[in-house]
C-alpha cells in the first residue's frame, strides 16, 4: 500500500462524502470564477439560447396540465370546505410557491442539465478539457461558469413563464370546466398570496438552476471509463439533481414559512 493510497479515508460512505465534497468544491469554484474577468459573454449567450430552446416548449406544455391538476384538486376540496371564493387564491399560491420553481427546475435539469453533462462529458473523454487547462485557460471559467449562469437565468425566466401559464390553466379549468365565477377567482388572487411569495419563487428557481448546472458540470467533468461513462454520468446527473432539488426545496420552503408570516395572520 502506497502512502498516497493510505491517506484516503476508507470507511463505508467515504466515497459518497468525497464526491459530495468535490461537488461543493466545484460549486465554490464556479461562484468565485463568476467574478473573474474576462467574462465569456458569447458562450453565455449561446448557452442561454440553447437551454431556453430545449426547455421552453416542454415547460409550457407541462405547466398547463400542472395548473389544471392543482385547480381540479383544490377545486373539489375547497368546494367541500365551502370556501369557493378562495379557489383562485389557493391555486395561485400553490403554483407560484411550489409548482413553478419545481417544474422549471425539473425541466432545466432534465433537458438542459443532461445536455450540459453530455457535452462536458464528451469533451472530457476527448481530452479537450485537459487540453484547455494546459493552454492556460481554466475550463471552469471558460465552459462551466457560462453554462451554470445560463441555467440560472433560464430557470428564473422560465419560472415566470410557468407561473403565468399555470395560473391561466388553473383559471381555465376552474372557470370553464368547474363552473367557478371568474370574478371570484381573479379577486381572490391577492387574498392569500403576497409579493414575497413571488420573490421566493424566483429565488428558488435561481438556486435550482445553479444546482442543476453545477451537478451536470460536475458529473460531466468526472465520467468513469470512457464513452459508456458519459451515458452513466448523464443519467446520474439528472437523478442527483432531482434528489437535491426536492431536498433543497423542502429546506427553502421551511425557512420561508418561518421567516415570512402568512398573509392575514
Amino acid at each position: 500500500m502506497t502512502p498516497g493510497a493510505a491517506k484516503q479515508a476508507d470507511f463505508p460512505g467515504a466515497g459518497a462524502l468525497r464526491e459530495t465534497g468535490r461537488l461543493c468544491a466545484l460549486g465554490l469554484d464556479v461562484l468565485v470564477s463568476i467574478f473573474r474577468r474576462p467574462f465569456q459573454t458569447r458562450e453565455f449567450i449561446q448557452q442561454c439560447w440553447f437551454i431556453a430552446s430545449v426547455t421552453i416548449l416542454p415547460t409550457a406544455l407541462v405547466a398547463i396540465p400542472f395548473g389544471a391538476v392543482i385547480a381540479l384538486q383544490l377545486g373539489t376540496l375547497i368546494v367541500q370546505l365551502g370556501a369557493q371564493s378562495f379557489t383562485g387564491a389557493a391555486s395561485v399560491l400553490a403554483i407560484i410557491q411550489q409548482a413553478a420553481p419545481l417544474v422549471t427546475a425539473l425541466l432545466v435539469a432534465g433537458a438542459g442539465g443532461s445536455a450540459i453533462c453530455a457535452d462536458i462529458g464528451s469533451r472530457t473523454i476527448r481530452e479537450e478539457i485537459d487540453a484547455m487547462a494546459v493552454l492556460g485557460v481554466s475550463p471552469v471559467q471558460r465552459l462551466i461558469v457560462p453554462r451554470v449562469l445560463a441555467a440560472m437565468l433560464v430557470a428564473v425566466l422560465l419560472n415566470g413563464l410557468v407561473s403565468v401559464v399555470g395560473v391561466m390553466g388553473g383559471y381555465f379549468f376552474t372557470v370553464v370546466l368547474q363552473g367557478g365565477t371568474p370574478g371570484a377567482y381573479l379577486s381572490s388572487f391577492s387574498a392569500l398570496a403576497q409579493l414575497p411569495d413571488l420573490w421566493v419563487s424566483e429565488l428558488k428557481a435561481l438556486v435550482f438552476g445553479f444546482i442543476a448546472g453545477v451537478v451536470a458540470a460536475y458529473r460531466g467533468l468526472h465520467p468513469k471509463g470512457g464513452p459508456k461513462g458519459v451515458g452513466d454520468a448523464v443519467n446520474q446527473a439528472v437523478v442527483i439533481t432531482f434528489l437535491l432539488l426536492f431536498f433543497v426545496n423542502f429546506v427553502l420552503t421551511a425557512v420561508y414559512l418561518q421567516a415570512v408570516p402568512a398573509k392575514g395572520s
Partner: protein
Amino acid sequence: MGAEVVIEGLTKSFGNQAIWRDVTLSLPPGEVSVMLGPSGTGKSVFLKSMIGLLKPDRGSCVVNGVDIVTCSEAKLYETRKLFGVLFQDGALFGSMDLYDNVAFPLREHTKKSETEIKRIVLEKLELTGLQGAEHKLPGEISGGMRKRAGLARALVLDPEIILCDEPDSGLDPVRTAYLSQLLIDLNAQIDATILIVTHNINLARTVPDNLGMLFRKELVMFGPREVLLTSDEPVVEQFLNGRRIGPIGMSEEKDAAQMAAEQAHVDAGHHDGSGAEDLRGVVPQIEPTPGLPERQGARRRKDRVMQILHTLPEAAREGIIDSLTDAERARYNVRSHRRPPAASFRGSLHETQEIARLPRQDWRGASGR
C-alpha cells in the same frame, strides 16, 4: 532559451496501484529529450503529472522556480502558458474548425489583432502541412492531420517547453520523419526544451539529446542519448531491438518460467521477433534543415557532456567521441580508442551518479511488490 524542468522523487499511484516511484530527472534547457517505455508504463501519466493535470503523491516538478505539484491554481495556469503540449490524438476542440483551434490560445492570451492572428495561424498550419484544411472540423480529418493540427496549436504561443505524447502514433514512417525534422528545426529556431514520449525506436535513436526509459514502475535511466543507446541493460537491449526475449512481457511483468520457456523456443530455432542486426549503438543525430541557425541546445549539451565524459560508461564515451569532428576532438582534447562493439560490454551504470544513474539499484528485484 527554454526553461529547465527539474523533477525530483515524483511518485504516482492510482489507488493501490503504483504507476512509477521516485522519478528524478532534469530536462536541460533547450535540449530535446525522449522518454521511452513499453506500453502501459505510465508515460502519458508522467506527462500529465508534469503539467499538473494529475496530482502526484510525492515529489516536485519545478519549472521556472514554480513547483507544479504544490503551487496555487492561479500560479499553475500562469506557468502552463510556458508549455506547448501535444496530446495523443491532438485533443482538438470538436466544435471549432482547425483555424479557430489554432487561434484559440492567441485569442485567449494575447491582445493581437485578427489580421495578426491570421498570419500566425496560417504560418503554423503551413509548418505542419495543413494549408487548405483550416476550415475543416476535427471530426472530418484523419488522425494524422489531427495530430499535426494539435502540434500547430501547441506551437502557436512560442512555448518554452514542448511536451509531445507519442507524436508518431498513427503517423506513417515518412510523416514521422518529417515530424522529427520539424521538432529539431523548431528547437533550432526557438530553443525550446522538448520532451517526447514515444516507443518509436527510430525517433528515439535519431532525434533526442537525452534519452530516458521507464519500466517496471521506475525510471531505468535518463541521460545523454549515447548512454542508453549503448547500454547493456537487458530491458534496454530488448526494447531497442523489439524482441520477445528479455524482461518485458506482453503484460508488463514476465516471470522466470516464461523467460526460460521463450529462451528454449529461441534456442530451438524459433524467431524471437527482432530484426537481423543489433539496433543499439550511436547513430548520427538529425541536424536542423540547412539554412536554419545552429541548435544552441546541442552546443550547450556538448559542453555539458564533455564535462561529465569521464563519469559515463565506456561504450557511451566511445560513441560520443566518435560522433565528434576532428576539430572538436582537438578542442575537448579527447581521442578515440575504438573498442570491441557494444555487445560485449557490461554496463556499469551505478558509477554514473550525475546524469545516468539508476534511481534505485534494486529495481530489477522489485517484481514482487
